[in-house]
């Protein structure tokens, strides 16, 4: 059944206007876990970084794993949205905002981890470039300073990329609500009326932003990879790291987007908008990324094995045959063996199939980040620098809380902003090829 513009508007405004009791319960439950994570962090701040498992020689553990993982997740949104906007893919309309939101929240969560990892977060301002009496100045040769600039550029860009197309929907909310909410949205919509001039300028701005945000997104994860590749640590100092990280980031990002869409679909009753066609197309993208990820993994491992440098091969076998072997093979299973048939066979590439594949990919990609960081640090060149790492309850609690923080932020966002862009879907109704909302159901 083809929906009218009025019905589309009513459907998509409903999640903002109404708050079902189960949404409130979910928010309370998630907030409690986030609070537990925050308490664990405060405990670490009060007691000292010693309560975390990181110690010589493994100074990067769960926190930096989470940092890399969440920055990777952030790649889904803005990058996919920008590519789909530029290619004018009609099926993008219901999913662009869901994707863009992931980027902003994942970046915020990811950017918190260097602060948590510092142990003394009140000194975080030392990272910012400013002259001071101690003669300390951020070293512009350090990839950590490049991170500072890259992540902030990406965060600002993604925020603007998310907010620009939201302005017309804020205007819709202004006209459809009353009381303080009307005033609230009247401020947010910045006086938007919807003149042809405004629509055209928005179109131009979004086009330019889409072009700009793609190289920024690629640069962010490239620079995150250089945090590792610029150091002569076994299996880090590799030219393949930048593209490998970018591919892994897009891979995990698409998986996170599919998971978010499945929950939004069922909890906000958006079945007719986030339809099987969206999942089928995203499933195909996920399949391509899975193959690319496996290709990079193979290329990295093959060249290390063939080069046969003692320190490098030691880490290679440590992950594949040694104490990390279980994690390694679970990672390969989660990122390639399990999702491949689910995504390659058309009959299995359903909403459930893509969801299951995505869940395993997210798990697999978190493990991959862990396996990049910890084994290399625990087996450096000489035996005096060998060691082990075991996460503590503080790190595990904070890690768990970030996943709940992501879900909580997403839920809260869906209460303030329509998670599916109303004007874009309405405009799509006038495009002949996408006139039917449920053409693929």
């Amino acid at each position, binding site marked *: 059944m083809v929906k009218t513009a009025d019905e589309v508007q009513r459907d998509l405004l409903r999640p903002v206007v109404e708050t079902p009791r189960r949404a409130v319960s979910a928010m309370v439950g998630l907030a409690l876990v986030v609070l537990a994570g925050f308490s664990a962090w405060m405990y670490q701040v009060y007691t000292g970084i010693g309560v975390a498992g990181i110690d010589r020689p493994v100074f990067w553990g769960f926190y930096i794993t989470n940092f890399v993982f969440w920055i990777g997740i952030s790649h889904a949104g803005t990058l996919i949205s920008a590519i789909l906007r530029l290619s004018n893919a009609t099926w993008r309309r219901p999913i662009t905002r869901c994707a863009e939101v992931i980027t902003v929240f994942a970046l915020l969560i990811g950017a918190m981890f260097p602060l948590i990892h510092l142990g003394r977060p009140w000194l975080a301002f030392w990272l910012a470039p400013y002259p001071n009496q101690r003669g300390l100045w951020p070293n512009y040769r350090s990839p950590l300073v490049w991170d500072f600039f890259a992540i902030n550029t990406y965060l600002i860009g993604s925020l603007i990329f998310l907010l620009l197309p939201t302005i017309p929907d804020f205007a819709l909310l202004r*006209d459809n609500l009353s009381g303080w909410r009307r005033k609230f949205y009247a401020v947010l919509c910045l006086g938007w*009326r*919807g003149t042809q001039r405004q629509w055209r300028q928005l179109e131009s*701005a979004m086009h330019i932003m889409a072009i700009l945000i793609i190289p920024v997104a690629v640069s962010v994860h490239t620079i995150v990879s250089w945090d590792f590749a610029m150091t002569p640590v076994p299996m880090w100092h590799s030219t393949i790291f930048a593209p490998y990280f970018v591919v892994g980031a897009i891979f995990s990002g698409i998986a996170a987007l599919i998971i978010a869409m499945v929950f939004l679909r069922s909890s906000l009753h958006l079945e007719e908008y986030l339809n099987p066609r969206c999942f089928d197309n995203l499933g195909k993208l996920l399949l391509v990324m899975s193959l690319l990820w496996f290709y990079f993994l193979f290329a990295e491992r093959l060249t290390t094995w063939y080069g046969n440098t003692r320190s490098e091969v030691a880490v290679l076998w440590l992950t594949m045959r040694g104490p990390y072997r279980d994690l390694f093979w679970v990672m390969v299973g989660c990122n390639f063996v399990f999702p491949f048939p689910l995504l390659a066979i058309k009959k299995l590439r359903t909403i459930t199939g893509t969801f299951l594949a995505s869940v395993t990919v997210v798990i697999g990609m978190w493990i991959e980040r862990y396996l990049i960081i910890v084994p290399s640090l625990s087996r450096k060149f000489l035996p005096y620098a060998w060691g082990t790492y075991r996460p503590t309850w503080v790190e595990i609690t904070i890690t768990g809380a970030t996943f709940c923080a992501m879900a909580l932020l997403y839920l809260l966002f869906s209460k303030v902003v329509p998670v599916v862009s109303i*004007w874009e879907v309405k405009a799509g109704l006038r495009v002949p090829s996408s006139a039917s909302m449920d053409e693929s159901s």
Partner: protein
Amino acid sequence: MNSENGIYVLCSEPDSTEKAVNALLSAGVPRSEIVVISSEPLEQYRFVDTPKVRMPWLAACGAILGGTAGFLLASLTQKSYPIPTGGMPVVTLWTDGIITYELAMLGAIVTTSVVFLVAAPLLSRNRLPYDPQVSKGKVMVGTNSVPDALRNRMTEILKAIGEVRL
């Protein structure tokens, strides 16, 4: 003499919008003074002329400014607070290039959004006509400057198309 008060008609679909625009044009209203307001972009229709804003060029200027600022930030501070580099150059283009690139992109992004706010224009203090019916799917067509002599005739013509607001 032009009246301060404009005339607007609420159309229920793009086809009647086109009729309203044509009626205004045939009444002698210049295309540049016709205003069309809708809750969606109406991508297939080009009802009115909008001033050209060279947004990509301005974004490029923003990128140049941002990049220059980035390079100066990195290179000048490296010179002002030199760190021991073991004989290597204090200012290095390889690494400063990364800061330059990131701030160039930031400059372009910020410029694009500022140009959009100004060119749209948003945050305008002018009280411009608007009807909340637009958010219910109506398309508002009209002009702010109607010659007094034509007002009655235009009202009659537009009434045949939709609900007229003066």
